[in-house]
């Protein structure tokens, strides 16, 4: 199967990735030749100023954005060879994503939101697993609540539970604490790193907060669509 993946090599390999998008003001070069390798189980912070291409790089890794040129291999799968539906199935198996804006389905309860990825994959235990994950993030008592009835921190924890529930190989987080206050943000990060440890998930998180980047073993710095710095830190999750 094209979408099965292989964890013998690096989890993420970007070779000469360019991404140009057509905007209202004309063509914009978002990514200008990214070369990057991330091994399984690493924790990587992607930092950089606004507009430097952090989120776009995340989208490329998840197969949500197709690069203009270059090769993207995630979990050993060349994403350029997959069509849209194969990409969806690939994500289902290997990728979990957490957004700054949570992006929960507003008409579904917390447990229904979390169960979705497993349901799409046809799993019979979707709801049992969803309840477990919600309990793990401390929301065992909020299963039947709609997103509109939850606080921002609770919504983000639902979004994380949804990202973990299928036990992804790679967890992508786009400014996961950007909309949260300091204490709530720290609690959310604690959960994120705990899961990384439990599942040996590769964690790639976009942030422009130094204290968040500090919790990762490696910090990749993007400026103007290029990697301006890539340094290993001592891991202290």
């Amino acid at each position, binding site marked *: 199967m094209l979408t099965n993946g292989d964890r013998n090599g690096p989890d993420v390999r970007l070779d000469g990735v360019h991404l140009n998008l057509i905007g209202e003001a004309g063509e914009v070069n978002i990514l200008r030749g990214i070369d990057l390798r991330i091994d399984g189980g690493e924790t990587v912070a992607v930092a950089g100023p606004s507009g430097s291409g952090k989120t*776009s790089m995340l989208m490329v890794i998840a197969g*949500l954005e197709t690069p203009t040129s270059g090769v993207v291999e995630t979990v050993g799968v060349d994403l350029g060879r997959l069509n849209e539906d194969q990409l*969806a*199935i690939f994500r289902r198996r290997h990728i979990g994503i957490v957004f700054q804006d949570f992006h929960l*389905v507003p008409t579904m309860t917390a447990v*229904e939101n979390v169960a*979705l*990825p497993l349901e*799409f994959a046809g799993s019979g235990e979707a709801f049992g697993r969803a309840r477990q994950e919600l309990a793990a993030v401390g929301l065992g008592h909020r299963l039947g609540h709609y997103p509109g009835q939850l606080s921002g921190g609770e919504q983000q924890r639902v979004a994380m539970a949804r990202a973990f529930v299928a036990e992804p190989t790679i967890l992508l987080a786009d400014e996961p604490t950007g909309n949260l206050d300091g204490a709530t943000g720290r609690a959310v990060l604690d959960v994120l790193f705990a899961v990384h440890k439990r599942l040996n998930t590769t964690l790639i998180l976009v942030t422009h907060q130094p204290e968040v980047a500090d919790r990762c073993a490696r910090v990749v710095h993007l400026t103007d669509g290029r990697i301006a710095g890539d340094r290993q830190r001592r891991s202290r999750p």
Partner: protein
Amino acid sequence: MTGIELAFRLARRELRAGLKGFRVLIACLTLGVAAIAGVGSLSEAVLAGLKADARMLLGGDIALHLHNRSATGKEKAYLRERAAAVSHAVEMRAMAYPLAGQGQRTLVELKGVDEAYPLAGSVLLRPPLSLAEALARDGQSWGAAVDANLLAKLALRLGDEVRVGDARLVLRATIAAEPDRIAGVFSLGPRILVGADALAATGLLLPGSQSHHYSRVRLAPGENAGAWIEDLNRAFPRAGWRIRGVDDAAPGVRRFIERMTLFLTFVGLTALLVGGIGIGNAVKSYLDGKTATIATLKCLGAPAQLVVGIYQLQILAMSLAGIGLGLVLGAGAPALGLWLAAAQLPVTPRIGLYPGALAVAAGFGVLTAFAFALWPLGRARETPATSLFRDLVAPAQIRPRFAVMAATAAAILALTALTVLTATDRAFAYWFVGGTIATMLVLRGGAALLTVAAARWAHRGGAVMRLVLTNIHRPGTPAPSLVLSIGTGLAVLVAVALIEANLNRLIGDRLPATAPAFFFIDIQPHQVPAFDRAVTSVAGTSGFKRVPSLRGRVVGIAGVAVEEAEIAAHAQWAVRGDRALTYAARPPRESLIVEGEWWPADYSGPPLISLDAGIAGGFGVGIGDRLTLNVLGREIEASIANLREIDWRSPRFDFAIIFAPGTLEQAPQTHIATVESPPEAEEAVEKAVADKFSNISIVRVREVLQTAARLLAGIGAAVRAAAAFTLLSGALVLGGIAAAGRRRRVHDAVICKVLGATRRQLLKAYVLEYGLVGLATGLIAVTVGTAIAWAVVVHAMRTEWIFLPAVAAAAATGAIAVTMIAGFAGTWRVLGEKAARHLRNE
């Protein structure tokens, strides 16, 4: 700067963003207003045409109409003396036989005119002969001008000859225009126009023959028609003619047009009301999109009144744009009608601007916009900035303040009042208003049931089913609007289709099954024995029935002259001119005696009559009371012996007034007859009569019913086209809903894709959602439409009801198709949306 000025300025600034949020609002108003303005303008244009052509249609300034007798010498002398010009004409039915033909014949509408004819307008002939040239006598033959379809029917050419009665007619020209004949009006056969002498030569004009005698009068310049008619009535109070002036030139056509206008206006109004749902949705969704702006304005210190003012002004401006566009389109309807359907219109419409019709349409447009837009506006006013942000998920139970609710109620009341006041038939208008409210309530109730059911099952199915069901029951769900808008249009269409199908069945199947095959008219008394033998000797015939027929007029009711008697509206027809009379020894089989006794078969005594029970009620008379009848100039006073219940819808002939034997036997009369016959024997029956009795008119019922069916098909097409407007309006609303919900759908689709949903799974969800809503809408609309059709068929038309599942099934399928197509039009692109664009924060 005053509040209103500031509101104006801010509204103008907001509108810089373009009309995007207002397209559906404008389209809904344009469509509804255009429909009403169009129907109104076309109707006024036709009525104006009728008025402008009135002298021509009437054939002069005043027309006098007599049944079965011509004006007397004294009457004619009076007319000659008192009018600037007089023209006499006679119309009757007759059979035409080609002179060189082998057994061909056809029923024709024969018209004999004098030399003064026509007093107004002119007869156009092809080739372009003068009327005198065309009708002139040439040796043995009289000239005639004919409808072109007579030539086709009898395979004749100009110059060929036909025999009508005892006269030979040479066909010299076809008639391109006959001024006093209204196009498209029901006729039993093609016209043959001859001179008065030729008509006399046919020998068909016998005492008692079924004939219509017209005397048309041109008045001297400056003469007052009303005064002239009064003088005439004083001079001949008992002449019994029906008198029409130019303001009453074609009352039947006028009634028909008014009826059609009313009906089509109501259909247009339904389209507008359906559009109202679209207007409400558009305003709501526009204001939803402005949530952040409204919240910001409020945070910056804008008072609620100013915020409402800003949006009220924008909505008002857009509504006026929609209404204006609708008026422009509607005003063009007369020209469009002339271009598309000149041949089907009874008169040439007068192209022009009809401010009355446009004002009514504009009034409906403004009131509809008010009725549907005020509520969401009022809610926006009351909504605190903080709760605006969560409105969709947990809608704050906010109601507009009392003034807004009262204004909405006032707009609805005004809409009802305008509907009733502008209708030519108040009772019909009340039924329409009641029916509309009931229909909308049932549809809204059905939608509520659907969402409740969806909520109940929403958390039981898989992800796809849950997406479907939560979309149907979630807060702010479009399902009720969908059911209401598509459902109303569809209910109208189902009702129209079922009524038409029922009428078609009646005319196409049921009447031919129960109606006789032939009507025979103008059987002379001396022909009776031979005629009876000729018809009944044809193998296969059955149910032969023949009765004498005379014309008479009710002139007195229980000793009071008709002009002074109080007569209920439903019985007025019975005193409007001559009515058919007969006499019989035994009661007719078809009608039921409900009061009194039938006379003995050998009765001979003072005049007795049997009267229709409905007329008796309308006259306020009963058994033993007396009616005075004028039969061919002779007044007869007769006692009512019994009352009968008559089924006037039956295709068999019956008489409102039947005399006992001993009174009318000696009066000039003819007989009429009917007979049933299998289709294969019809030719033999017709031949048997035509070969021996050239004066007897033979009406083939099958052909008449076919003509009626063709007329009905034309009317049905017009009504269906109008009803389609309602559905189109519903589709617009649906398109608006789909467009308004697009952002939410894109969001849902993107999240699902990120979580691993395939396009197939999303497609399945959409198909299921729209399919379910469409199916529910179809079922409710079919139920409501069927109920309306049943009520109309059984209670208004008083005929037998048949449910036609094929029509209902087609409608339900149509609902699902329309819902899916219109739903997909707004949603299809969602499937192909790139997720990344919607997920970035940068």
